[in-house]
């Protein structure tokens, strides 16, 4: 039954997946940045994402705007409920942006080292926060009758959420490592080969721990999979995508490794969406309804108008995104205009 509410649930998942895949490697590059030893290498790492990070971040802005427009009750609940987390996320994203922009503008060593660490820390914090948010949403949140989150801030830093945060950070680091491998050559690329394996290993461990914890202790996350057995297909595809990464690295096909990594990230977003469906925020308070794609939604007219926007707008966006990525294909070349 494909109605506008379901369509928008899917479109939001697509926007979120787009953001995670694209800014995932931006944040991963930031997390890995300290492995670059010389100033030259650090500039290469930064310029691997230099032209692209800004456009990638727009996927988050558009996801937020679309969530606001399509499901304002959910937007209001999540953003006000996770107030501190969102404020910290904003601080992190601001620092990430200005670290990239300012770092190479002056030649002072102190200046550059400061912004290098800022780039690393802000990328890491952002990645952790995304995971912590997802981990909390998967467990369900206590909401009152109006749909306001009535839990505290410290409750959000529970073991499961922190585990999901660590998994997300390691996932982005792996994704960023593979991306950097593709964009670099020479000594830096050789070291990145090691780091691809390392980050994959850490991610694999985090993935297994998180999956086990989810299966054992987070009933809300697995309920849908029991109810709709066909959803197991996505789980199988996720495992295959993850398994393909080391296979591709081993057989020296880093391009395919990167695609598998992209597929893995997309699969996690779809697993997340399927675990939530049909809720946007599951209420852990008994007797009060959850925020669903029906009761948290805007009017059908708004959903229709937004759908028209998406139909017209997104093909253009995809087209010129491809053109722009194509323009910056290949290894990083430092020039007059690089960061």
């Amino acid at each position: 039954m494909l109605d506008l509410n379901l369509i928008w649930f899917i479109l939001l998942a697509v926007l979120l997946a787009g953001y995670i895949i694209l800014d995932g490697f931006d944040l991963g590059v930031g997390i890995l940045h300290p492995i670059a030893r010389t100033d030259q290498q650090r500039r290469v790492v930064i310029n691997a994402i230099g032209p692209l990070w800004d456009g990638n971040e727009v996927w988050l802005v558009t996801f937020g705007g679309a969530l606001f427009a399509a499901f304002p009750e959910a937007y209001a609940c999540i953003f006000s409920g996770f107030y501190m987390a969102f404020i910290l996320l904003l601080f992190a994203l601001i620092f990430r942006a200005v670290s990239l922009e300012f770092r190479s503008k002056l030649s002072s060593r102190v200046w550059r080292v400061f912004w290098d660490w800022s780039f690393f820390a802000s990328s890491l914090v952002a990645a952790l926060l995304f995971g912590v948010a997802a981990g909390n949403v998967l467990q369900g949140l206590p909401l009152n009758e109006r749909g306001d989150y009535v839990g505290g801030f410290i409750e959000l830093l529970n073991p499961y959420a922190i585990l999901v945060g660590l998994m997300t950070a390691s996932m982005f680091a792996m994704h960023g490592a593979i991306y950097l491998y593709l964009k670099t050559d020479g000594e830096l690329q050789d070291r990145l080969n090691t780091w691809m394996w390392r980050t994959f290993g850490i991610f694999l461990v985090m993935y297994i721990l998180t999956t086990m914890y989810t299966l054992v202790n987070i009933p809300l996350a697995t309920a849908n999979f029991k109810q709709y057995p066909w959803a197991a297909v996505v789980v199988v595809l996720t495992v295959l995508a993850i398994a393909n990464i080391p296979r591709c690295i081993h057989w020296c096909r880093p391009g395919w490794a990167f695609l598998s990594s992209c597929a893995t990230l997309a699969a996690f977003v779809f697993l997340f969406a399927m675990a939530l469906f049909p809720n946007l925020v599951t209420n852990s308070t008994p007797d009060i309804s959850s925020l669903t794609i029906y009761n948290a939604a805007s009017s059908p007219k708004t959903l229709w108008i937004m759908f028209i926007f998406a139909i017209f707008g997104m093909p253009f966006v995809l087209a010129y995104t491809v053109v722009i990525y194509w323009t910056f294909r290949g290894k990083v070349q430092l020039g007059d205009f690089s960061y």
Partner: protein
Amino acid sequence: MDVVLLSRLQFAITIMFHYLFPPLTIGMGIVLVYLEANYLRTKDPLYETAARFWTKIFALNFAIGVATGIVMEFQFGTNWSPYSRFVGDVFGSPLAAEGIFAFFLESGFLAVLVFGWDRVSPRMHFFSTIMVALGSIFSSIWIVIANSWQQTPAGHHVVQMTRDGRPWFIDSQPVLRAEILNFWEVVFNPSTMHRLVHVWIGCFIMGAFFVMSISAYYLLRNRHVEFARRSFTGALLLGAISSVAILVSGHFQANNVYETQPAKLAAFEGHYQTGAGDLNIIGWPDDESQQVKFKLAVPGGLSMMLHGESKAEIAGLDRFRPVDRPPVLIPFMSYHLMVAFGMFFIAITILSVLLLVIGKLYRQRWLLAVFVIAVVPAVLANQFGWVAAEVGRQPWIVHPPVQWQESGELVVGADGYVQYEPNQGLRTADAVSTNVEGWKIVFSIVGFSLIYLLLAAIWLFVLNDKIHQGPEPVGVDRKKGGAQGLMQAAASLASHTGSMTETHE
């Protein structure tokens, strides 16, 4: 802790810092398109040098604009969740459209604009520059539409929400929200076009004065003279036309504000008592005595501006219940400062254009010095305009409509006051997130303030550094010498009144 005041303070701080950057992006975007078009047309290397220089500064501004812009989108949800629920159906769509149609365009092609000089053909690069300029203008369209809907809502109705198929009550109160009826009426609500035009021209002024400030500095220091003259001339034309145009736009907009938000206009002008209105040039509104002290005014001037005759009755703040009135001091002062600066811009740009025509502009060092500093009032005028608009809109976050009689008077109730229909608007005090404690907002205010102070300092520092470095001539074009280079240099003298033999003035 007054969470309403704290959230308003945070919004004010974050938006005022953010608004330093998009107008520069819009204004400089136009400058970049102009410079690159001329380069493609004339192949004069100086245009390319100029374009590359201004692009570096553009990129710096753009990055901070993006970083501070996300803060705004998230803030509707974090601090204003009841507002988001009430208006999301209507207000959310322009914001989503801003992402889909504008942000992707400008941020995407920014990659080619800033990093792609040596990677793509000049034509493709020029196309990218146009896309970035267009993207920034598109984004201003959507956000001004959204804000204008807050000021003069239209194209919607306010309905009770349903939950589980039944009308939704909480504590016996119906849960209400605005729902869209007609998309085009939302977009073209009564104030959109006035405000959009006014905002654009304000951005052009800010961009023009920014370029003129830097160019004038170079001229005073006798550096990069040819580059500076060309930049200054282009920006001066943009600045002069915009300064005059914004006066006209402002006049029509003030009329529009009087029709749709008369309490706001009364606050702007310090018009406490209904009756013929004086046009205050300066003054100090005093709420206690309900009059403007130390005033210097044109008698009947306000009535003249709004109705064409000096004795016409203008609705005063006394037509509104005290709880429905906006504060007066801040809107009055910011509005008057904005207008004062606007007059100053007209004066110096027109004077400069006249001097340029007779060939004496670049000799007036005092005037160039004024332009170095004039970027500050250009920024302030833009900020004060917004302060006036948003503080003057209080106590509303969605301003309800007012009704006028045929006679030109407001429709009032038995108590002599305008009866706003309670559900047609939303008060700011009712729009604040109820589950966000004061200490959290203090934390975020302090955090943003410190970070933004740091960013401002660094931005100015790096900007200063880039300005001192100055434009770098594009390497390959230095080889163009001989007669051809000479002819190009001759043709490049902007006003054609300068002399080939006179290098310094």
